[in-house]
């Protein structure tokens, strides 16, 4: 029988990077930018988090470098789509292609290896032990995590407050809903969009740092579709931060379940497909229902008209 406590513990660890990326994605989504470059942002940050930690021999410098790398890619992306008016989807896909190639390529001149680079284990992200958590049965799975994991768990609440209870959040939401109205109301929409995208880059940077430094190594393609999983989580949650916390947790646990299943010989692929199937359903089903119900309403209105005539 599977040990569900360890499953949950692994789930929290897997959910943390997805959650950080998802919160960044959500900010971009709020200003109606559908960011497909999350994968590229995160992979670039993974690489530079490892570079920073290795060069400065300090894990926190690694986190800083990761965040800076994420912000840098976000700056490039936002300048291209906001200033040069390039199609955001194409720009995002080219960033993903470029970053995948670049991180593989740069392993050679920087570390003189190919494929992966493992650092000494003292450069791992330190974990925090909170004494009193051990005594509480289920919550103890939250113990012994790195500070970035705790940050990722707090972030949805912070974002919820910022989005729905501050002026900045209001500006962001109105920019996403109706840009003309926001402009008319005196909101600097370009500034709001830049801010959202740069925050998105910084959060992807944190996710990359957590991903790479918690295992103190860089592996080519180590984001492994997490950017798109986060996108699926945000789509499923309807871009609401607290619901996104739930969906990210769900996907984190399903990822750890798929790892446990594949080691015991079952097919883990279908579990991997769950996030995407759910997001697809979430995107399509409400619209289908609305279409069908509209059709039915139209029919019943026609019937009423017929009945009116026949009377």
């Amino acid at each position, binding site marked *: 029988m599977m040990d569900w406590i360890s499953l949950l513990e692994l789930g929290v660890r897997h959910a943390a990077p997805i959650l950080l990326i998802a919160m960044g994605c959500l900010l971009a989504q709020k200003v109606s930018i559908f960011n497909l470059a999350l994968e590229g942002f995160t992979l670039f940050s993974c690489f530079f988090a490892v570079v920073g930690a290795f060069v400065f021999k300090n894990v926190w410098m690694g986190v800083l470098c990761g965040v800076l790398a994420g912000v840098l890619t976000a700056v490039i992306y936002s300048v291209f789509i906001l200033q040069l008016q390039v199609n955001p*989807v194409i720009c995002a896909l080219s960033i993903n292609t470029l970053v995948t190639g670049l991180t593989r390529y740069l392993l050679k001149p920087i570390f003189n290896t190919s494929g992966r680079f493992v650092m000494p284990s003292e450069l791992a992200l330190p974990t925090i032990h909170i004494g009193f958590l051990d005594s509480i049965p289920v919550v103890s799975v939250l113990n012994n995590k790195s500070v970035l994991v705790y940050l990722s768990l707090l972030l949805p609440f912070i974002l919820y407050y910022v989005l729905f209870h501050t002026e900045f959040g209001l500006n962001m939401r109105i920019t996403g809903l109706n840009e003309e109205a926001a402009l008319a109301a005196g909101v600097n929409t370009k500034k709001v969009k830049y801010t959202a995208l740069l925050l998105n880059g910084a959060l992807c940077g944190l996710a990359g740092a957590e991903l790479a430094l918690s295992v103190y190594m860089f592996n080519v393609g180590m984001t492994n579709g997490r950017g798109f999983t986060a996108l699926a989580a945000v789509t499923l949650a309807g871009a609401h931060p607290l619901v996104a916390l739930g969906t990210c947790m769900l996907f984190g646990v399903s990822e750890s379940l798929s790892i446990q299943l594949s080691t015991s010989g079952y097919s883990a692929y279908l579990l991997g497909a769950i996030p995407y199937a759910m997001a697809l359903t979430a995107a399509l089903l409400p619209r289908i229902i609305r279409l069908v119900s509209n059709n039915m309403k139209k029919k019943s209105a026609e019937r009423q008209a017929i009945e009116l005539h026949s009377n």
Partner: protein
Amino acid sequence: MKDKTSNLIRNLINSSNSIVAVLIAFLIGGFMVLLVGESPINAYSAILKGAFGSPTAIRNTVRFAIQVMLMAYSFSVCNRCGYFNISQEAQLYTSALAMVFVSFWTEGLPGPLRLVLMILAAAAAGALTCLIPAVAKFKLGVNEVVVGVMLNYLTKFICQHLIAFSPIAAKRTSSIVSIEIPEHIPVPVITVGAVLIVIAYAFILRSTIPGHRLTVTGKNKQFAQASGIDATKVLLMAAVTGGVLSALCCMGEILGYFHMIYNEFAAGMGTDGMTAAFIGNNTPIGMMFGSLLLGALKSGSVLLSVLTEVPTELIDCVQGLIMFFATIKFFNAAQIDLKRRRVVE
């Protein structure tokens, strides 16, 4: 006559955009080669040699170029009417699965009949997969990119599951692949077929009524509707065509070269097609040059790591850079047109 010359100039301006993008990408790529401590001239001549240096190299280049070209046409026919065909990888996976399943189920039937059934099944699967995001966009109003991306991952995982745990799985311990299919199409037939498809595509787009409808609908949907074209039908037909073109690419790969489904065989092929489409600016001839360039890069990368110390990933970087810069309008044809007109006046 005057109209024709201005058209030519516009095409030249558009293609010079792509040429500048490619040159910038190679320039940055050259600096990256310097980073490893090699000479860029050596690296690029190694790629050139790997792409055109021997009959085998040229054969490989043609193979990759055809693969990229079909994907580019599939992307472009949808892009013409404002439908972003990002679910190309899903189309490749489903049509590959359709072929292998039909081959598995129809054992005992005569060979040519099986081949025809497989081709039909693959085309249908590709078209249906391409239709899902299209219907979502045009009937339900959902962003086709969301649906397409989710569909890519969904089909990738389903394909992995099927080639690992189903009747079509080859039970090998080393790698997950599907069973081998007995049907083959000789490579020259594929090459000739691809060339014929390209000619047909250019002809249909330029001088037939469906092609004209597609162009008009792509330029202005409201205008098309007002002049009596059923725009939604045209758009969905374009999506079907795109799906069938992806399926044709998949047929070439599976029936001509692989004869089985490899794990994640379609990874990156959608992006390749998109890049070629942007290099070629959606024109049939331009896309041919674009796919030849990408095909040459792909087949040339083999010699790069043999002859020099440069990692093969240079190719990925250059391709990403090309895609990056190909979308920027360095010279804007419309603006230059306007300026010329002002001068004439």
